[in-house]
């Protein structure tokens, strides 16, 4: 089963672990993110990281097709999915690729 899944598929979602998932989830949960004026360094850091997910998930997580909408996503679900991605990654020896398509196993 596992061997049928493309190794190192879409592997970016989980790298969010380098920072705090909770804060990232908040950035997506509240897309009206306040003005840059007086952002903490931590928020800036997450803002930049989360913004680079836009190529696949759309601006502020508002996907226009093919990938899940992250904007407004329930934080518990966000965190749970990230943990699943990480678990899937480590089952390949740690260098694999979450944001893994769940329907790929059979491809």
């Amino acid at each position, binding site marked *: 089963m596992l061997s049928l899944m493309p190794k190192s598929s879409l592997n970016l979602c989980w790298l969010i672990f380098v920072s705090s998932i909770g804060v990232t989830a908040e950035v997506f949960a509240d897309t009206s993110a306040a003005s840059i004026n007086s952002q903490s360094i931590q928020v800036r850091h997450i803002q930049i990281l989360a913004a680079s997910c836009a190529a696949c998930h759309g601006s*502020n997580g508002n996907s*226009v097709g093919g990938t899940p909408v992250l904007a407004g996503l329930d934080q518990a679900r966000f965190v749970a999915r990230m943990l699943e991605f990480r678990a899937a990654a480590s089952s390949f020896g740690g260098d694999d690729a979450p944001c893994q*398509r769940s329907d790929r196993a059979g491809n």
Partner: protein
Amino acid sequence: MNKRRDFIKLGVASVALATLPACAAYSAQTYSSAKAPYRVVVIGGGYAGTAAAKYLRMWSNGGIEVMVIEPRPRFVSCPLSNLVLGGSQRIGDLTFAYDILKAQHGIQWVEDAVSAINPAARKVQLTHGDLHYDKLIIAPGIDFIYDKLPMLQSAEAQQKIPHAWKAGEQTVNLRKQLEAMPDGGVFVISIPPAPYRCPPGPYERVCQVASYLKNNKPAAKIIVLDANPEITSKKALFTKAWAELYSGMIDYRPNSEVVNVDINTRTVYTEFDSVKADVLNVIPPQRAGKPAQMAGVVNFDNRWCEVDFLTYASTVHADIHVIGDSISSGLPKSAHMATSQAKVCANAILAMLNNEAPDPNPVFANTCYSFVNDNMAMHVANVYRYDATKKLMLPADGGGVSDQPSEQEGKDAQYWARNIWSDVLT
């Protein structure tokens, strides 16, 4: 039709413009640009420039004035443009108006070309007047170097021997030449020494041309003259795809830099050899775009711009930032990369204008898909992290490439394109 969707309507004679759903989360607002304390001028409306302009407005809640200077009336995507050569995509599918971006974010837009930049006076001179800036972002993409191939410099020469490395008319020209090529003809492509725009792009192009020829002119041949010692990106995957999908069709020659071209006979010369083509595609060597040269910020190898990776400020002039393909970085010159850099730059400029420190530890993603035929693609994806000791963006563990091309990834690549287009154009 979904109510969220706003469609661009432009009656342009020859080009059917593609349409994008407008971003739902960020609805139009009224901005008081007149009162804005700062003006950031952005040179270039490609992936880097549009992303920088949008995120500057969005993250400042419209608090600063942003002005984009772009001579071309429309955005044409380089990503997916090789598919025009293969025939599964038309250039109109990749061509977009800037209207939604401008209107949704209150971005000032000047359709003009830059003729000079005066860093001391913080002024950009245009064909029609000049502009003052507090911060300047230069995002001009690439410029071609014709020092070694001066015969290719003229517009007429490029008509006959297209580079097709800036998407648009050149892409369509090359496609037409392929359509007109006789079966049994020879397509020759020359790949410049790295670094150049889109590392896997030339090899994807070979796949696309091969896919078209296999279905339409099966006796045709492809000769790849690569100035590099080996395939520079996704090597194993391309080698396999060529062998499996286009067996016997592709003659790959590494270490083959083109030193001369006879335009009339479409003959290319390498140091030891010459090859006559029916259709010839020379991708010239590249450097930072002209506005970067005008600003005097090209300070690496006479070709690229050195920047501080926390802010993308030029190491020559602190108030001039450079993003996208023009910088010297060791990072792949890709569209996603350009937008990632644009966002770090926009975020840092807003911090600096507010007398605060920028993120000292930026992390961002880059993805790049390549199509091996009309519906199967493969990717390379990495996360990059700032290394404070080396002062560089370095790839984090966990990146990688596909095991093999697939139809699912072909779909993913199209989804990626929709999302990045909506990110930079709406």
